[in-house]
């Protein structure tokens, strides 16, 4: 992924009042990312202790809903997966399968020591030593289990990352421009 410079939305956005209404000229990536980062849906994937803190984070006090972050039960509807808890070898291949089922663009948030490195269960014969051995991880949250505030912070970090991405270059590519050309010719 190429390095992306921070774009200041106030400088790149141009607003003009015309007789036909308001015309707004802006960076397309910024406009799309603005929408994307305000509705990040996560896959409810709780295996162990962290799952309870994940539930509490979605609960009334920490209230993830205010960031547009809500849980989904199906990987097909989710933007990112919160790996909350210990992953064993028996579970590892299923985690990979869930990750593969997520629709692009997808992100992984590793919550808690167990999924970061194996944590307390490093000496165990059946625990995977870090979920990054099977899926790429975007954000790590330390703690055993992390507090809801820590998880909220991690999700804000993920939002930041989503907001900075060159969405069209990375995920849409030439398909989008072909489509635009096709619309233009049609008219």
């Amino acid at each position, binding site marked *: 992924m190429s390095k992306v410079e921070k774009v200041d939305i106030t400088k790149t956005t141009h607003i003009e009042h015309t007789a036909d209404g308001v015309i707004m000229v802006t960076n397309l990536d910024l406009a799309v990312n603005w929408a994307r980062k305000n509705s990040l849906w996560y896959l409810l994937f709780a295996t162990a202790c962290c799952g309870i803190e994940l539930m509490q984070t979605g609960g009334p006090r920490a209230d993830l809903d205010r960031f547009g972050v809500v849980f989904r039960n199906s990987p097909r509807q989710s933007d990112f997966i919160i790996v909350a808890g210990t992953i064993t*070898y*028996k579970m*590892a*291949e299923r985690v990979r399968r869930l990750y593969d089922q997520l629709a692009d663009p997808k992100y992984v948030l590793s919550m808690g020591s167990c999924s970061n*490195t*194996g944590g307390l269960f*490093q000496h165990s*014969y*059946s625990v*995977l*030593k*870090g979920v990054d*051995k*099977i899926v790429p991880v975007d954000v790590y949250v330390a703690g055993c289990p992390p507090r809801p505030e820590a998880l909220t912070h991690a999700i804000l970090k993920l939002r930041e990352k989503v907001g900075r991405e060159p969405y069209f270059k990375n995920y849409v590519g030439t398909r989008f421009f072909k489509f635009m050309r096709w619309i233009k010719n049609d008219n």
Partner: protein
Amino acid sequence: MITKEIFEKLKEKFGDDIIRLDESVKDPFVVVNPQKWLEIAKYLHDDPDLYFDFLMSIAGVDYPDENLIRVVYHLWSYKHRHMLVVKVELNRENPVVDSIDSIWANANWLERETYDLFGVVFKGSRNLKRLLMPEDWEGHPMRKDYEEPKEYHGISTERENPVYLFHLVKPPEEE
């Protein structure tokens, strides 16, 4: 009834198949003959004076020095409120004991767990498969001499200590 009374009652009925009573530990236990365990268990469950209707746990304990695996059964009677600890001693190379899942319904899973982790074979079991570990796992991990495999399905089972990544500290030499 305390364990000593139960032991005497069992001794009267089964004779030499009840091997010994150990009262030196906090929760005294009775050692029985693994070949006759099913019969004894049935008696323990059905006899009105004993009436052990609740099988609390089955635990394997590995003793490599004595070349033994001891399977420990904890029984409880709700009616008479007494507990009994029964042990069977099995050869480590070929541990076989009678299955008791026809008597207590929860025994099957406890036996499967012991089979999975210790390799104890329960003769006559309804369904003896691995319970906790994946089907294709090799070895019985709770045995004392078990060594963790280097990888499972292509996933490495080791994680390098981040302290040693930057070569500031040297890892301790392996013995």
